[in-house]
């Protein structure tokens, strides 16, 4: 049989050129300096200043992920539990903000949290002193939660929605109370959704430089800002590449942990 597999040819070349080579270049820049192998860029990263930035990035990303999970899970349950018409309406309401430009969503919080922002104006009306709401960790976490909450809710919703309702009935018939049904049936069955939600929130959160720049201010550093700065301000490509490698490792580790929980689902949560 004559085949048309040659159609993939151009893309195979393309992948080599635009996916593999650029990534290899990051690796090369990270470990080579002036033509020789060197771990200088990595040892530079071991300074307390930079390790602190990494620790803070991971910590804030974990915190935002946890908040998204605890806020998002009940919301997903609520939506999944509605009747069809209401459910679709609620889903759409959930999606509209997400379809808005990411930067505008972040910018929106600047108008709320700023020194002349709405919240401080409101405090002023109550006779309370203005608070510094922007340019701190809280603002950054808030920005992350706001931007990435749908990434948590949607996979969990998808799993809950497709869950076999007879399992829950069976558990009830066998005498489980609502707490029992939740901890013994619903929660374990929704683990794949939770796992992919966690990955989908943690990854953009740990690598962001926009949210930290806009809500954390010019001096605020997360690992994403560090990478951006090395490439666009300092021009230190070796160090920038080394930090990127570290970021990739952090993400690979987190995905490795999460993929253990995602097993056993037939692509249910992947978006296509």
């Amino acid at each position, binding site marked *: 049989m*004559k085949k048309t*597999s040659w*159609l*993939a*040819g*151009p*893309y*195979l070349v*393309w992948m080599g050129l*635009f*996916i593999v080579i*650029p990534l290899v*270049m*990051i690796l090369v820049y990270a470990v080579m300096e002036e033509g020789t192998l060197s771990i200088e860029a990595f040892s530079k990263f071991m300074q307390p200043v930079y390790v602190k930035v990494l620790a803070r990035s991971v910590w804030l990303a974990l915190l935002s992920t946890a908040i998204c999970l605890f806020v998002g899970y*009940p*919301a997903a349950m*609520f939506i999944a*539990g509605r009747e*069809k018409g209401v*459910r*679709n309406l609620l*889903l759409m*309401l*959930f*999606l509209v903000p997400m*379809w808005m*430009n*990411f*930067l*505008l969503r*972040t*910018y*929106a919080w600047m*108008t709320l949290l700023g020194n*002349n*922002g*709405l919240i*401080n*104006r409101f405090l002023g009306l109550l006779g309370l002193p203005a608070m510094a709401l922007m340019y701190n960790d809280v603002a950054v976490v808030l920005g992350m939660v*706001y931007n990435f909450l749908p*990434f948590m809710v949607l996979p969990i919703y*998808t799993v809950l*929605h497709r869950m076999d309702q007879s399992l829950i009935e069976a558990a009830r018939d066998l005498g489980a109370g609502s707490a029992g049904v939740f901890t013994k049936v619903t929660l374990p069955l929704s683990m794949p959704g939770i796992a992919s939600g966690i990955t989908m929130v943690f990854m*953009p959160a740990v*690598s962001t*430089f*926009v949210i930290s*720049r806009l809500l954390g201010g*010019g001096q605020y550093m997360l690992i*994403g800002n560090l*990478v*951006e700065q090395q*490439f666009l301000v300092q021009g230190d490509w070796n160090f*920038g590449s080394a930090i*990127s490698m570290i*970021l*990739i490792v952090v*993400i690979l580790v987190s995905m490795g942990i999460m993929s253990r929980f995602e097993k056993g689902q037939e692509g249910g949560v992947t*978006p*296509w």
Partner: protein
Amino acid sequence: MVKKWIGRLYALGVFIFLYAPIAVLIAYSFNAGKSRGRWEGFTLKWYGTLFQNQQISSALYYTLLVAVLSATIATVIGVAAAIGLSQMKPRWQKAAMNVNYLPVLNPDIVTGIALMLFFVSVGVRLGFGTMLLAHIVFNIPYVILSVAPRLRKSSARLMEAAMDLGATPMQALWKVVLPEIFPGIMSGFLIAFTLSIDDFVISFFTTGSGVSNLSIEIYSMARRGVKPEINALSTLLFLTVLLLLIGINLLSKRGGKKKNGEGLAEQSLMV
């Protein structure tokens, strides 16, 4: 029942959290005063200055141009690749799909700087061309991922049948396989289009001076503080998104093929 009301109140709270910032932006876009805090009367002047803003209209032009071009090119290359890959040995197929996954799994910042390093190293000047190329690079994987599942189901046997009936391989592709996977192609194109419109990070690293898209423009304006024109822009974009989503919802209701809530949920995950 108390429990029912707690649930509703909770959901209401979440939706207020999602919409309050947008509502504030929209309200302020009609505020005559430049300071955010104080309401100084209704005005439409920010919409006027928005449209007179050369930078924003050029950014809008580049955003749409890159989105249309990159989504189209990515769809062509991606569909061809998906068809070709589906006829290769599973081992090769798997290897290629793993590489294809890299831009999806990598954080945008890594894809962005990797491409920037590459472009600069081979001596290409950063600008419109590199930004377009970068968008095609991150769009193709999504096209392939939305086309591939449909191919696995049908194509091989249908193609054989068509060729048994006398079609050449290319005829079999055009007349049988492509119509069969058309919905996948369409959703791949739409995903690519929306991803391109929404992209900031990769564009930020791969574009050069003079060429920026809407996201980059918003970023550089927002970095300098709050501007009333951005509020007006937000309002317009929000309305566009709302109308588009309502439109899609109505269309898919009429089409009735797919439970639209799910379809939307699946698509939106991409953005």
